[in-house]
């Protein structure tokens, strides 16, 4: 288990040192947050929540989504083609530990965007939440990103390394846009609104929107996210097994 902890540490360090990671999943959400809040001013969205708090949740979700997806969408394919995953296979680190650590890394590296955007919201726009709300929000970011961490693993086995970058970005921006992270769903045309309400990204952000509105998190949100997690897990397991059969049997 010592080795597994070491691997997790290594993976997290690698991610935090990656310039694209810092730029796309911490820098961009912060920048968009500051941009959007300056555009929408100091109005309030529904349920008496200020835009600055609402957009904070949107942009944290946007950053966390990117962190969870990109951690593995590109990396798993790259590591298969470079031979690094094969090299790890000839150490005592088992293949299941490899995948578990990868998914765990994806979940944990969502936190920096939460911290950075949260600090900006608090200090630049006076978003003031109770300690309990902040903690609940952090828990929502981590637990709510589980389906996307699994989706990242799935993408890492769907795409080869050359298509991984573009493919993952398309899924990322699709989920962000259609899930109402950039433009709130209720401002969307009817048809798109219908789509938004099927997007896991919408329900991910909705966890946070409920927390800042001091509303209970609907069981349906959790159920939908769990269903997506299960679906992605089944598909990822299939792709994983076929990749294993190709490379290791």
């Amino acid at each position, binding site marked *: 288990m010592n080795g597994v902890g070491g691997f997790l540490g290594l993976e997290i360090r690698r991610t935090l040192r990656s310039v694209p990671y810092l730029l796309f999943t911490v820098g961009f959400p912060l920048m968009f947050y500051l941009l959007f809040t300056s555009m929408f001013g100091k109005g309030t969205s529904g349920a008496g929540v200020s835009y600055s708090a609402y957009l904070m949740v949107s942009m944290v979700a946007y950053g966390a989504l990117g962190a969870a997806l990109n951690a593995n969408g590109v990396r798993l394919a790259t590591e298969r*083609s470079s031979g690094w995953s094969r090299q790890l296979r*000839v150490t005592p680190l088992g293949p299941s530990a490899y995948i578990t650590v990868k998914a765990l890394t994806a979940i944990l590296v969502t936190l920096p965007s939460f911290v950075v955007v949260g600090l900006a919201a608090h200090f630049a726009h006076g978003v003031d939440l109770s300690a309990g709300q902040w903690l609940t929000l952090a828990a929502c970011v981590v637990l709510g990103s589980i389906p996307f961490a699994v989706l990242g693993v799935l993408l890492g086995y769907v795409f080869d390394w050359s298509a991984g970058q573009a493919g993952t970005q398309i899924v990322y921006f699709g989920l962000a846009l259609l899930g109402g992270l950039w433009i709130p769903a209720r401002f969307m045309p009817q048809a798109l609104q219908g789509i938004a309400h099927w997007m896991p990204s919408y329900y991910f952000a909705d966890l946070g929107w409920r927390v800042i509105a001091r509303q209970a998190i609907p069981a349906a949100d959790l159920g939908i996210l769990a269903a997506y997690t299960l679906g992605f897990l089944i598909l990822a397991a299939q792709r994983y097994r076929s990749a294993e059969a190709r490379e290791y049997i």
Partner: protein
Amino acid sequence: MAAVEFSAVTKRFGPVRAVDGIDLSIGEGEVVALLGPNGAGKSTSISLMLGLRRPTSGTVRVLGGDPAAAVGAGRVGAMLQTGGLPPGVTARELVAFTAGLYPRPMRVDEALQQAGCEAFASQPVDRLSGGQKQRVRFAMAIVGQPELLFLDEPTVGFDVETRRHFWDSVRAAAGQGRTVLFCTHYLDEADAEADRIVVIQAGRVVADGSGSAIKAQVAGRALQVTVEGPDVAARLAALPGVVGVERSGSRATLRCTDSDAAVRALVASGIAWSDLEVAGGDLEHAFLALTGADGAAAAQAQEVRA
């Protein structure tokens, strides 16, 4: 207990028989080279030994058990041919992380030093040269103090100096009673570094023994003479003890299984010759003969097997 044991192992990929019936036993503490041209089945054999692939038929045992179990228990270290290193970490971090995976690792500094990585241990691995990366991978292979060490084409792309330093490190590792198995297509490397050479061709073992035994098997010695006349090569080839003749202008090289008999026959043959030289057959000729660079040589390889 054998370190590696192959019994009637085959491995097919669709219609391709990458390994076509190999029986092989490698004892503990041996330093063995797997030698063969590209596509001969060396890397597939290594994959089978590491549990990365499963044989189509036959059994592979490593350190007395299942290969994957030996790997899982940290008793095996390996340097694969395509073992890319991940970006964003230093050499030291990688070796330290690897050490953490094994039950009884050596100190990280010791591994870095043995592999010759001290000078660049704190640099990100993505900025290292090919040879430096290879040394980092060697450090990762030895840091767990495995009983059995696999090196798949470890010195490809090394310059002479780096190669020498690398083999010094391997010998130090082997000196601690470790079994070392390496693949190479450098003949001199196999000859110089291994106690035993296993020549693989088309998925089969075509020769197995020390470098000098293999040389002796194929062609013990070479005679060189200056001769005249067009039909002389055929007459030379017919001499007892001679297995092959190469002609370059008036100079003929006779590959011999028994050079003494060949010299006696040459003297008695009435062929006009001058400037006789006798040299040890080199491994390159033996290798070409064994791996079938030409038809005659392939037939000869079959004889050697029989």
